[in-house]
């Protein structure tokens, strides 16, 4: 554990923050720009995992385990979220025969 933290700390913290922000932005752009529901799920996962990485980096730099515990919770929630999302996708696919979210246009004003 000690050596791992030392290895993590060889890279400056700013790099982690920049990298995670970039990952997060890619996720946000993916959600906004893509119309395929599966790609949107993947982009959301990217957003969650960038937060995971950032929490781990902070936690290693501060020698505080709270951030790493949080990561476990996020992983569990992300897994549950994907399970629900895929189930909903199957149901939607049955009625519309496509996973393009532009097909979701019954409700509008």
């Amino acid at each position, binding site marked *: 554990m000690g050596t791992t933290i030392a290895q993590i700390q060889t890279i400056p913290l700013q790099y982690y923050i920049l990298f995670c922000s970039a990952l997060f932005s890619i996720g946000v752009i993916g*959600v906004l720009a893509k119309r395929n529901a599966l790609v949107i799920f993947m982009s*959301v996962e990217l957003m969650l995992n960038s*937060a995971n990485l*950032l929490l781990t980096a902070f936690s290693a730099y501060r020698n505080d385990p709270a951030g790493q515990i*949080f990561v476990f919770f996020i992983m569990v929630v992300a897994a549950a*979220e994907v399970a629900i999302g895929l189930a*909903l996708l199957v149901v*939607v696919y049955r009625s519309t025969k496509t996973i393009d979210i532009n097909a979701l246009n*019954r409700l509008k004003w």
Partner: protein
Amino acid sequence: MYAIITISIVAIIVLFFGAIEKKAPLLPVVYVGLSLAFILNLVGWNQSVHYYNEMYIADNFSIAFNGVLIFTTLLVFIFAPVYYKPVKRPLEDIYALILFALVGSLIMTAFGNLLMLFVGIETLSLSLYILAGSKKFDPNSNEAAMKYFLTGSFASGFLLFGIALLYGASGSMNLEAIKQYVILNQAHMPGMLTIGLLLVAIGMTFKIGAAPFHFWAPDVYEGSPTLITTFMATVGKVAAIAAFFRLMSSSFAEVESIWKLTLTIFAVATILIGNLSAFYQDNVKRMFAYSGIAHAGYMLIAVIALKQQAAGVLLLYSMSYTIATITAFAVLILVREETGTFSIKAFNGLAKHNPREAFAMTIAMLSLAGIPPLVGFAAKYNLFVSAIGQGNLPLVIVAIIGSMISVYFYIRPVIAMYAKLPSGTAAIDSSSNYKKQITLAAVLMILLGLIPGVFVNLI
């Protein structure tokens, strides 16, 4: 804490009864469990107990809001047997999911650590995603669930990244520790904390359904089964706003300058967009969705003008909003069952055959619009007075203008009920199944209007 444990156990018992195909004991178990949870929740009033290293804080704020949430869920469950009458299967999954969502909302009002905020929000949201799609063969319900899921998980991403940045800046996820850090670094806030707070605020605004992140709400509210919409519009919204209030008041009250302007813009936009969009709706269910957005804007005023007094005002406001919304949705369910449509025309001539339901709907609408002597007026009055006391006069002027606009669309169903003739043959059966429940909700609303001061000074 005991309330959460009780409700979780009740939910598991409900699932068990469903698994062994017993339909009869389901609802009695839920009623008894929720009543028990309501009483257990009140234990510890005025004591401010901390559980699990300040993960869960049972102070007066959380006890009062949890009482409102549990009571609201009980009211929603009272409508369940008539709403789900045509369904033959035991429905244990829906009841259990509503209970699990309630557990999430109870955690949200009482969190003492950002970890619990996240867990509570996700417990609530994940249950609501499924509930929104619980009419499996209705394409509208499917679409509502899918839209809710996509926007909701997107918002969770923002919330999480914001929490990660807050943790990185302050070194802790405990609200008290963050407060200490904020006070120490008041002079020059690190950019990481400001950005983190902004991202968390965006995530919470999504969950509340306030502008500019409100666009999911009308579609989701319209497509979901109406009973679930009722639950979402009341418990989901009140829990989210209480969580937001708790976060702001316990950690960031000292640094108003970095978030006050942003939230003021959000609140103004929410009030205007909510009220103006509701103006054009012919679909009453969708109109209630926009009305819910507008009320989220009013409740945001309480967050902006936060001092300890504002908590009581927020409590009164959420009670008045909750009870009026439940009454209105109950009448809407009844009308929809008889006429098959959510259009405003379906209300034509309701007063002739169902004077009691029409009266309940009328006072619900007037209370939401804020007409004295109903509770909605007392709530708005207290809210505006406390906001002016904190020097937010321009914001209150916008809110009052919004309130005046809202009178028009709240009066429309009332006019349809009393002044217009029933359209066609679809006269609503006066021996409706909802009579008792609607009467109960209306009586509650009138009772609440008599004693608003009690709740303002409660916490």
